[in-house]
């Protein structure tokens, strides 16, 4: 198993290094890479649930909770700091994840997915309709926060938030991969293949899934907080079902067999969107759709499954 993972880990290290260095040469990439890393963190949560064979079509709710926590703090309390926003966003999404999780982990497959969707749409409606508090569809502006008391110009800030995102993404990647290799991570995988046996080994499958769910909610909240800081706004769109679909799309694109799949998928998605949007304006989704069709046809295990597929086809050719 170790031999199979190693090349992916190497690819992950290269990816994080490129994320750190490339924007130093092309400044417009700083925000692009920061967004890739932030969304990669959210998608890590989706990848985590995929281990148990569960797909959440409502994870944007945790993304929105993280984003709105920063927005509310800025609007009602004022001031703020990147670290404070991250701590608050992490706590609020974790608490919300625990509450929602207690309901949804009782269900599996399509029911799990749709119940998540239902919760996220309730949140989206609240954000849209409670105009006096949320500014409705306009959202809430998130003023550029400082970091540990330091205040930055817009030019410097894009690098500050890039490196904060990079540190958190690398830590999240390492933590999630360790978790997946731990007994609890293996038990999460065991839910997918044989939940009955897990119960007969003395474990509560629901509790194992709940732990995974809360971790994934936390990751969603952290990613949402970062995106709100990067884009300096939180809107109800952050919690809309299309956003949840986008995260699932990225997870499938990258592949769910390893934590790096989340970042590989996020990089491909944001990169295609960045350049396709520049050339095709409102038709960039067409390009993304074609990319997904190609991935499903030729790399059903996502981008990180390409190498394995290539090796297998090489063996067959010999």
């Amino acid at each position, binding site marked *: 198993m170790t031999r199979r993972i190693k090349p992916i880990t190497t690819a992950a290290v290269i990816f994080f290094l490129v994320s750190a260095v490339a924007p130093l040469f092309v400044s417009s990439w700083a925000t692009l890479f920061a967004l890739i890393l932030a969304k990669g963190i959210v998608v890590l949560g989706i990848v985590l649930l995929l281990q148990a064979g569960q797909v959440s079509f409502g994870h944007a709710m945790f993304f929105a909770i993280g984003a709105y926590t920063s927005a509310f703090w800025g609007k009602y309390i004022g001031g703020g700091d990147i670290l404070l926003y991250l701590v608050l966003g992490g706590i609020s999404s974790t608490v919300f994840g625990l509450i929602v999780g207690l309901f949804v982990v009782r269900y599996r497959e399509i029911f799990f997915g749709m119940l998540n969707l239902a919760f996220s749409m309730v949140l989206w409606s609240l954000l849209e309709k409670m105009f006096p508090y949320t500014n409705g569809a306009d959202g809430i502006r998130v003023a550029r926060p400082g970091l540990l008391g330091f205040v930055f110009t817009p030019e410097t800030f894009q690098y500050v938030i890039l490196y904060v995102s990079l540190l958190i993404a690398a830590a999240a990647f390492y933590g999630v991969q360790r978790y997946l290799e*731990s007994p609890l991570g293996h038990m999460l995988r065991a839910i997918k*293949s044989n939940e009955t046996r897990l119960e007969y080994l003395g474990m509560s499958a629901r509790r194992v899934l709940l732990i995974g769910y809360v971790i994934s909610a936390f990751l969603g909240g952290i990613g949402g907080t970062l995106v709100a800081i990067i884009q300096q706004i939180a809107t109800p769109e952050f919690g809309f079902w299309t956003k949840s679909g986008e995260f699932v799309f990225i997870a499938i694109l990258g592949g769910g067999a390893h934590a790096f799949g989340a970042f590989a998928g996020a990089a491909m998605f944001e990169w295609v969107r960045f350049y396709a949007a520049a050339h095709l304006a409102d038709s960039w989704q067409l390009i993304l759709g074609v990319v997904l069709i190609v991935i499903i046809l030729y790399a059903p295990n996502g981008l990180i499954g390409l190498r394995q597929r290539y090796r297998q086809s090489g063996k067959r050719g010999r």
Partner: protein
Amino acid sequence: MADVLLSAKDIKIRFGGVIAADGINLEVHEGENLAIIGPNGAGKTTFLNISTGYLRPQAGTVTFLGQDITAHLPRTITKLGIARAFQIPQLFLDQTVMENMLIAAASRQGYPSGFKALSRLPEASEMERLLELVGVRSYAERKARELPEGQRKLVDIALALALKPRLLLMDEPTSGVASSEKLEIMDILTAALAKEKVTSVFVEHDMDMVERYAHRVAVWNVGKIQKVGTPAEVLADPKVQQQVIGI
């Protein structure tokens, strides 16, 4: 007489018009291998399902070491010391045999926290010993789905043994296995049970297996226990021969 491990008192359960248990009374003694025989639909598996918490009887109680476990969940009963092996082996097919075993070992500890890799758990050597004991050590690094049926059965039993149970309930441990392998599997299995000091109850249709490996036999028929005794006593009973064995 040895201590009573499991005791079922006046168990009743029916599914619509089918009576699966109609006043079942049975004791399982420490150290024995108790075989349950009977025609299909007699309620043998239902008894295992009730004893492991998968089904709740409509009347009666099941006690384990004197503790009432009738309303307990399967995982609670497992923690008390009753493990189960299934007619169709229940493995984590996408994981290796050793990972399957280590998940069982970790489960025995409760909810493992921390980020220690599963493969580095200190129980790894103990799990290797168990796999050796049931004769599937050479499959340790293979995915469970790649194993032949007979080996899957043995891994399923090894998983149960990894929990260090006092009592192991097995549903047709040799079904689906080539007849040439049955004796070998049962030899391995009974030796492992004796070495680990595990009492067993096994449902079986093959009377050769029952005669050779059971200490006592309970005969099930239409939700009732028709007879309990040594294999020689039970298999020689004309009623059992006629109604259950079909001679």
